[in-house]
């Protein structure tokens, strides 16, 4: 289950953060997202030399905690998407697919002429679309 999704701007300013769980307090999830930003920076500045996917937008698993897995995605425009999930058995392809759908929702939100670049995304349509995407995704291969 996805418990938290965040959009972070190029100066590490939060643009959108939403948690989808009752069990954990939001602050803990915000903390996890915050910690992951350092990992993103590290990945970008010291890319692994192996593989042709050196500048891919999808950054893969950033770090696992006891209960969560954190995935990252960095667009060409230096906007970061952070995903926190409780699922343990996750296929990269599913996460990749999720991020792609999330990215197009984000694009439509920032293309709104009334959206001010660099400010928080307040669009209700975006919030609805994100929760639809989150609900439709289940990473666990078991079910």
């Amino acid at each position: 289950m996805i418990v938290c999704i965040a959009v972070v701007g190029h100066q590490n300013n939060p643009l959108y953060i939403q948690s989808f769980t009752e069990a954990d307090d939001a602050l803990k999830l915000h903390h996890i997202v915050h910690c992951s930003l350092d990992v993103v920076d590290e990945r970008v500045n010291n890319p692994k030399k192996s593989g042709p996917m050196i500048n891919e937008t999808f950054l893969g698993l950033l770090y696992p905690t006891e209960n969560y897995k954190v995935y990252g995605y960095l667009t060409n425009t230096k906007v970061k998407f952070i995903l926190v999930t409780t699922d343990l058995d996750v296929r990269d392809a599913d996460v990749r697919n999720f991020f792609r759908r999330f990215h197009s929702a984000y694009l439509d939100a920032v293309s709104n002429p009334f959206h001010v670049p660099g400010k928080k995304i307040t669009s209700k349509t975006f919030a609805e679309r994100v929760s639809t995407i989150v609900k439709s995704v289940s990473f666990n291969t078991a079910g």
Partner: protein
Amino acid sequence: MVREVSESCMDSLLTEIVSSYCNRFYANKPELAARRIEAIGYQVGHQLSERYTMERPRFSDHLEAIKFICKDFWSELFKKQIDNLKTNHRGTFVLQDNKFRWLSRMSGDPSMEISGASQDPSAISENKAAQATGMHLYFPCGIIRGALSTLGIPCAVSADISNLPACSFVVRIKV
């Protein structure tokens, strides 16, 4: 579904933006009008580059980003690529378009002003035409600056009309 934009509508809109800002809102302050038109272009470029870079890996250096502007970005906007790209390898790039779409319907030849004697009235009107043409280039300049800034490259963009409808955009990357 493929979304399309009517070319003639776009041409008319640009002409109308320029004439509104130059002749109505800021009739006596052409610099201010230019800045406002450039700012509109900036926002358009910002949003377009966000969209057009979605499916591609991140750029590793400035040249790659500029190449993206010349090829893919220009094709999306004008259905053609930039004809010539020059650089001094120290942060200045010159993007030349031999038939810039937004100038292709423009009449009057600004290159005449150099040859004509400065005193006769036709030369003055030519000069005015060149100024008006220059006003139409602040919008595309803003688009380029917006697109590059969004990609993390702060820069200044100016335009240069050699002979219509060719024009070149000079990109100076700030360090």
